[in-house]
Structures are given as C-alpha cells and as structure tokens.
C-alpha cells in the first residue's frame, strides 16, 4: 500500500492551500480597497485645494476691483505641499474672463478642474502645489510661489 498515511499530508496541504488563498484574497481585496480610497481622497483633496485657490483668486479679483488710482497688493494662498503623500501640479488656463484651474497629482492619473469667473485678467501659468502668492499691480493677477 503506497497511499498509507496520506490523509495527514493531504490535510496539511489543504490547510496550507486554503489559508494561502484566503490570505491572498484578503490582501488583494484590502490592497484594492486602500488604492480606491486613496484615489478618492486625492481627488477630493485636489477639488478642495482647487476651490480654495479659486476663492483666493476671487478675493484678489475683488480687491483689484475696488481700486481707485494706483493699487497693488498680494494675497498668500496657504496650499499644502502634498496630497496623500504625493506632490501635485496646478495649471492655470485662461480663456478671456473664464479661468480653469487644473490640478494633477502624481499619485493618480486624473486631472481635477475648477472653473472660475473673474473680472481682472489672470496670467496663465503652471506651478507646483505649495503656498502661493497671488499678486496684482494694476495689470493682471499673477500667481507665483510664495
């Protein structure tokens, strides 16, 4: 009889196999869950950052509008340097008085856009996400690193 004492080995192999499958399943599901959550968090944080920058640009726009005579000023926009551990870029695109803020994180392959309508012209530019200075001096509003 060659198949004596097989059940112990089989039992052991089955236990190992099932445990491995369960653990792999758990890790895969957990990994996917974490990745999905991270993507969601990055997108929503980029949205919030876009809204904050849009708000600061709108504030600057209002300040530039109440001018009389020579007017100058600067507003500091306190933006975080990282979103969920990864850096991000801000692109300011302008088309007449409509401005679009496009935010891209290096962590995910998506661009989040925030539209903005303004009265004072804003200079189109690309900046890395970090605290920014929004300045105006009679002409157009310029965004640069603080």
């Amino acid at each position, binding site marked *: 009889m060659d198949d004596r004492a097989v059940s112990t080995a089989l039992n052991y192999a089955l236990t190992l196999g099932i445990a491995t499958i369960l653990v792999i399943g758990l890790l895969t599901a957990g990994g996917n869950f974490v990745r999905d959550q991270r993507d969601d968090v990055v997108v929503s944080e980029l949205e*919030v950052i876009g809204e904050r920058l849009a708000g600061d640009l709108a504030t600057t726009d209002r300040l530039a509008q*109440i001018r009389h005579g020579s007017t100058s000023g600067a507003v500091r926009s306190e933006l975080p340097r990282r979103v969920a551990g990864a850096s991000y870029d801000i692109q300011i695109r302008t088309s007449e008085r409509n401005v679009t803020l496009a935010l891209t994180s290096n962590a995910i392959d998506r661009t989040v856009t925030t539209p903005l309508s303004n009265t004072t012209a804003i200079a189109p530019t690309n900046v890395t996400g970090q605290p920014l200075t929004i300045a105006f001096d009679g002409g157009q509003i310029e965004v640069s690193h603080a």
Partner: protein
Amino acid sequence: MAHLTGESTERAQILIVSAFALGVLFVALAVILNAAIFTENLASRGETTGGERVVDFRGAIERAVGAILTAENGNVTDGSPSYETLGDRIETGTATVRQFLGRQHARAGATGDLSVHSQENGSLIRQTDSGRNFTNASGARADWTVAGDVTRTRAFALTVNRSQLPSACTRLTDCFVLAVTDSGGNTWRVSINESNGVAVSVDNGTGSIGTCEPAQSDHVGVNITAGTVNGTACSALNFTEAPDGPYDIAYRNGDRINGTYSLTVDNTSVSTTAAHLSSSTDTDPSVTPAIYAVTVGYDYQTSTLNYSSSVRIAPGETDG
C-alpha cells in the same frame, strides 16, 4: 520548510506574513484617513486671506473721513476759512481716524495706515432759516442761478414746509422748479407743489413726467442727489439723468416754496462771483468754501495679505 512533525520555530509563517501585510495595509489606510480628515478640515475653513477686512477698513475710512468732511465744511462759525485751513482740519481729523482704525485692526493682527493724498475744492451753498423762501440773498429774485458752471454736485437736499407750499399753481410751470441745465440746453427739472401732500414731479427731458409718492409730513425732506422723498426712494427722482457737467443749477419761482437747502458743488468760484448768495452764514442763502472731495490713500497688511490703494470720498455724491 516546515516539518510535519515535532516542535518547530518555523510554523505559522503564512500567518506571520499575512499579519504583517495586513498591518502595512492598516497603516496605509490610517495615512489615507488622515489625508481625508485634513481635506475635510481644509474644506470647512472659511475665507482665510481676510480680504473682507480690507473692504471693511476701506468702508470705515469712507464713513469716518466722509463725516469729518461734512462736519468741517459745515463748521464755518469762524467766518470763511481758506481751502488750506479746511484741508488742514480734515488732515487732522484723518490722523485721528488713522489712530483709531489702526488700534482697532491691530487687535486682529493687522496694520492699517491712511493719509489724505489730495483734495478737490468746491463750495457749500445753503439756507438754514426754515421760514425763508427760496429767493436769492437780497430777496428780490425768485428766478436765479444758484450755482453756475458746475461739474459735480453732492449732498443736495431740501427741506420743504408743507403748510407754506401753494397748490394753486401748475407743476413745472409756475410752481417752484429746480432746473439743471447744460450749455447745450439739455435740462433736468424738479418741481415741488402741494397736491394731496408734498408732490415732487421730475421732467428728465424725455417728455414723460415722473412723480414721487406725495409726502404727508409738515416738513418734507427731498434729497435730490440720493433720490429720496422723506427718506423713501423715488425712482423718478434720479440725478444721474441730469445733464453731465458743466451745468447750471437754477431755481424758478423760488418765492413759492419755504424751507432749507444745502448742496456742495465742485465749482470754487461760486463763492466769489455769485451775486445772489451771501458770503456770510449770517445771511441766507450763503456760500462758503468747502472741500468737495478728498482722496485718501491706505495700506492694509496681515500675515496673509497686503494691499495698498486709495479711495475718493465725496459723501452724498450720486454714483455713476
């Protein structure tokens, strides 16, 4: 390789590895949760740059210096001050405003500074005796030019005694008429008479006559530049429809109305050339030098913002 029998320290490797991996997973989840919390925190913060405080500062300057302007122009008990004297007084007042506003904003961690940059001279024309009619200073002329060659007028207000206002006259004809006429003959006229109250009629030159709701009180305030009758807005009384300057402001049938009036114009020569006005406030109607407007420059700084601009202050001037 784990042995099938006997004591071994290499057992349960899968469990250890998976527990470790799960641990890493939870740490990653915690980091992401932290980012999410930070996002919510960021999203729920209000406007942090403090832009509204600049507008607040500017509004406070406008109100305070405007009040000083009105008070100093009206305060001519010491005769007829020169424009320099008036300017000095306004600068002194502005320095006090600077002190108060600076202190107030310092409490909020901001510095605010302001100073008078320039002044526009003008004339203050007024009648303070409420029993007097709207004739010229000698009382001989009922049709007369109050101020000629005027580009801007502000704070033009009349207070009319209803009991002495005639009803037996035709509005815009032989009742009291205030006419604003430019050199091209374009005219904007306001007529006041008694008709179920103090009736204000406005002819803006387009052919149709606008009227305001008749006011019932004994003394009715008609604010020409603000467009109100007894404080109630009247859309027909719209000073922006008056011709652009330079224009003449004239009264017709000034003997058919009694009360007080006051207006500030940007013409400085009214005080020296007007034959119909008294240069002393003892006799009505009088004309005295007045600052028409001042431009105040201001700076405002906080940790997140700096702003420098100026504001032109002409209290009671019609917008547009």
